[in-house]
C-alpha cells in the first residue's frame, strides 16, 4: 500500500505540473488580456501596448511560464495583477469561508440523505418515501440561483429571520447552506437507495434459496461494501467540488469564498490569481480523489491496487 501511495503522490506532482501548463496556456489563448482591463476604456492602442509591455505579456510564452515556475519553486505563486498582493495570501484569505460552507453542507447532506435513502429503499412506496423522493428530485433540478434568491426573498426579506448576505454571523450560514444542500440531497439518496436495494435483493435471493447462515452473512457483507462504492464516489466528488467553491451561491450571497474569487479572476484575466486559484482547485481534486481511492480499498477488500 505504501508503494501505491508513493506512486500516487508522484503522480499528483506530475498532474499538478501538467495542470499548471494547461491553465497557463489556456488563459493566454482565451480572448482578452489583463492589460485591456487595467487601462481605462479611453486608452489609445499605444498606451495599451505600454501596459502589456509593463506587465510582461509580450514576452514569449515559455519565458513567462519559466518565470512562473521559478516562482512556484520558491513557494511564490506570483502577485495578483489587480490586487497587487501575493496570490497565496489572497487565496488563503478566502479559503476558510468556502471550506466552512462545504463542510457544513456536505455533513447535512450525508446525515439526512443516507437515512432517507435507506428508508426509501426499505419502505418503498410509503408516504415518506414518495415525498422525500419528490422533494429530492425537484431540489436537484432547481437552478441554484433560483433557490438562493427565493430563499433570500422568503426568509430574509419576507420573514426577516435570516440575514441576506455575507458571512457576518452564524445565521448567515443557514441560507447559503440550504442552497447547497437541497440540490445534493437527491444524489446521495438515489445512490444509497440503489445500494440498499442491491443488498436487499441479495438478501431476498439468499433467503429464497435458504443457504447456510455463515455464507449468508459473508455474502451480505460483500454486497454492502460493494454497493457502497458508487455512493462514496459520487458523494466525495460532490464534496470536492464544493471545496472549490460554488460560484453561483457565493455570488448571490456575497459569500467571500474561493469560487467567487476564481470566477472574478478569470473574468478580469488576472493571470496569476486565476492560475493560482485553478491550481489550488486541482490540488484539492487530486487529493480528494487520492483519499477516495484509498477508501475504496478500505471499504471493499477486493479492490486491489497493483
Amino acid at each position, binding site marked *: 500500500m505504501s508503494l501505491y501511495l508513493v506512486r500516487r503522490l508522484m503522480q499528483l506532482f506530475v498532474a499538478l505540473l501538467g495542470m499548471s501548463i494547461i491553465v497557463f496556456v489556456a488563459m493566454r489563448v482565451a480572448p482578452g488580456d489583463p492589460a485591456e482591463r*487595467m487601462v481605462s476604456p479611453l486608452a*489609445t492602442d499605444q498606451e495599451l501596448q505600454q501596459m502589456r509591455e509593463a506587465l510582461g505579456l509580450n514576452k514569449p510564452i515559455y519565458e513567462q511560464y519559466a518565470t512562473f515556475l521559478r516562482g512556484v519553486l520558491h513557494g511564490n505563486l506570483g502577485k495578483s495583477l489587480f490586487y497587487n498582493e501575493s496570490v497565496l495570501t489572497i487565496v488563503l484569505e478566502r479559503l476558510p469561508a468556502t471550506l466552512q460552507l462545504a463542510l457544513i453542507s456536505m455533513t447535512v447532506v450525508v446525515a439526512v440523505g443516507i437515512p432517507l435513502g435507506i428508508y426509501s429503499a426499505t419502505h418503498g412506496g410509503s408516504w415518506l418515501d414518495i415525498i422525500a423522493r419528490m422533494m429530492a428530485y425537484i431540489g436537484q433540478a432547481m437552478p441554484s440561483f433560483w433557490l438562493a434568491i427565493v430563499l433570500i426573498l422568503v426568509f430574509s426579506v419576507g420573514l426577516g429571520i435570516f440575514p441576506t448576505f455575507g458571512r457576518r454571523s452564524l445565521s448567515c450560514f443557514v441560507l447559503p447552506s440550504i442552497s447547497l444542500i437541497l440540490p445534493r440531497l437527491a444524489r446521495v439518496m438515489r445512490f444509497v437507495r440503489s445500494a440498499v436495494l442491491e443488498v436487499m435483493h441479495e438478501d431476498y435471493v439468499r433467503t429464497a434459496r435458504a443457504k447456510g447462515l455463515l455464507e449468508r452473512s459473508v455474502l451480505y457483507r460483500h454486497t454492502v461494501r460493494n454497493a457502497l462504492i458508487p455512493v462514496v464516489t459520487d458523494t466525495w466528488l460532490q464534496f470536492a467540488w464544493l471545496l472549490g467553491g460554488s460560484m453561483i451561491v457565493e455570488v448571490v450571497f456575497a459569500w467571500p469564498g474561493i469560487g467567487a474569487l476564481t470566477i472574478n479572476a478569470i473574468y478580469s484575466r488576472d493571470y496569476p490569481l486565476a492560475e493560482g486559484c485553478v491550481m489550488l482547485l486541482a490540488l484539492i481534486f487530486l487529493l480528494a480523489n487520492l483519499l477516495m481511492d484509498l477508501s475504496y480499498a478500505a471499504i471493499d477488500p477486493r479492490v486491489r491496487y497493483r
Partner: protein
Amino acid sequence: MKGKKLLVAVALLGLVVTVISCVVPTPEVIEKEVVVEKLVVETVVVEKEVVVEKEVVETVVVEKEVVVTPTVAPTPAAPAGPADTLRIALRETLLSLDPQKEFQIVSLGFTNKAFADCLVNYDDEYNFVPGLAVSWRTVDDLTWEFKLREGVKFHNGEPFNAEAVKHSFERLVDPDYKAGSAFLLAGVESVEVKDEYTVLVHTKEPFGALLPNLTLVSIVPIEASQRDDFATNPVGTGPFRFVEWRKGERLVMEANPEYWGGAPKFKRVIYYPIAEDATRMAAVRTGEVDIADGVPPEEIRSLEAEPHLDVFKTASNDNICIRTYLGEEAPWTDPRVRKAMMMAIDREAIVNEILQGVGAVARSVLSSALPVFNPNLEPYPYDPGRAKALLAEAGYPDGFSANLVVPSGFYPKDAEITQAIAAYLQQIGVSLEVRLMEQSSAWPLRRVPYDFFYSGAAIINMDGDMALYRDYMPETSREKYNNPEVVRLLNAARSSLDQDERRELYRQVQAVIWEDLPNIAIHDVGDVWAVNKRVKNWRPRPDKTVILKDAFVED
C-alpha cells in the same frame, strides 16, 4: 395505490413551489391602456395604494394608469443600524485601495474620495472649487501655479506640501507603477516645487483640460505610497481613514477628526460589495445596509413603497452609443445609412419601457448631464418610414446584415436593449446579429475592425476633452472617424485655457458630430440609488462620486 400517492405528492409539491413563488413580494402593476373616449376606472382596495383615475379625451393617445399594490406587507421593521455607522452596498467589487491606481468607478468615485483629496474639486454646478489647492492661476500658456492649503496632514502624520504634490504627479505617470489613469496627466511636462506651499505645473502644450483632470488626481504621501502594501493600506488626506479591508467581503473606514474640510459626522463607514442585484436590494430592504446603488428599474416602485427607504434617481455622465466602424468599406460608412438606423430605433420606447424611464433618450453623443452638453441639437425622430426611404436612397433598399458586439452585463439592460434594437432594425431590413460576449472577450474586439459595438462612456471628470477628444480624433478614434472640422475644433478646445471658450467649442463639435452621426446615440444612463431614511444630507451625483463626509445618520 402507489400511483395515486405519487400523483398526489407531485401535485402537492407543484403547489408548494408555485405558492413559494407567489409569496415572493411582488408589486402588482396593473397597467391599463386607455384609448380614445374610453373611460377606465378601477378601484382596488388594499392596504397601501395609490389609485389614479384618468379620463382621456384626446385621440390616439395611449395612457397608462399604474396602480401599485404591494402584495406583501412592507419588509418587517429591521433593527436600526448603529447610530454612528453608515453601511453602503455597491455593485462593483473593489480591486485596489491605492487612490491613484484604479480606473474603476467604485475607486475613482468612492474610495479615492474617501481616503484622499485632489487639488481641485467640483461644486454642484461643476465649477472648480478649492480642494488641496486654495488658489491657482495660469502664469503663462504653459505654466500653472497652484497655492496649496497649509496645515494639512496625511493620515500617517506626513505633512502635505508641494513635495507631496510633485511626488504624486510623478508617481501617477511612472510606467512601472502601471496606473490606469496615467493619461490624466499626459499633457503635463513637469512639476516644479516653488516653495513649500506653491507648485508650478508645466504643460507640454497649452492644456485646457488640466483642471478637470486634476479633480481625479489623488495626492498621496511620499513615504507611505512607496511601501509595498499601499494598495491594501492606503494613506491620504481624506475625510476617512483606513481601518480594515477583507477583499470581496467588506471595507471599513473611520472618520478623520482632523480633516481640513471638517470632520465627518459619523464614526464609521462599512462598504460591502454585493454583485447580485436581488441580494443588494434585499439587503437595503431589511436594513442591513443603508445605501445601495444600481437599483433595477423594476424594483423602483416597490422600494419607494417601503416606508423606511428613499429612492433617488439622478442623471449620470454615461451615455450609450452604437459605435460604427468606418475604417473599411461597408454600408454604414454612408452617413445616410447611420441616420436611417437611428431613426428606425424607437429610443423613446426603449427608455420608457425597458429602462422604465430611468435615464433619457440620447440627444447627443455625450450625456445631457455634462456641462458641455449641447441642448440645441435637432433630435432624430422615430420614423421607420423615413428610415427605410433613406436606406433605399443610400443604395440599400433591401437592407444588409451585420453584427453588434455587446460586452455582456456592463451596461444596464444591454441584452434587452440590443435585442429590441435588432427587432427595430429588422423592420427596415437591417439584419443585426447581436453577439453578447463576456466583457474581457468583447473589449479587445473594439480595437480591430468590427461592424458595430455597443458601448458607453462614463466621463468621470465631466469634461468635454475626455468625452470627445480620443474618440473623435483620427489618430485615436477606434471608429476611424476623420472630420477635419472636428479636428480643428477639438485641438482649439484642448489648448484654450478659457473654460467658457472651451465649452462653446465643444458644443460646436457636438453639432458637427451629430450631423455626421458616426455613433448612433441611444440613451443617457441614469443612476438609481436606494437609501435608508435614517441617512440625511446625501444625494447621488451625476459624476458618480459618492461623497459621504457631509452626510449624517439620525434614527
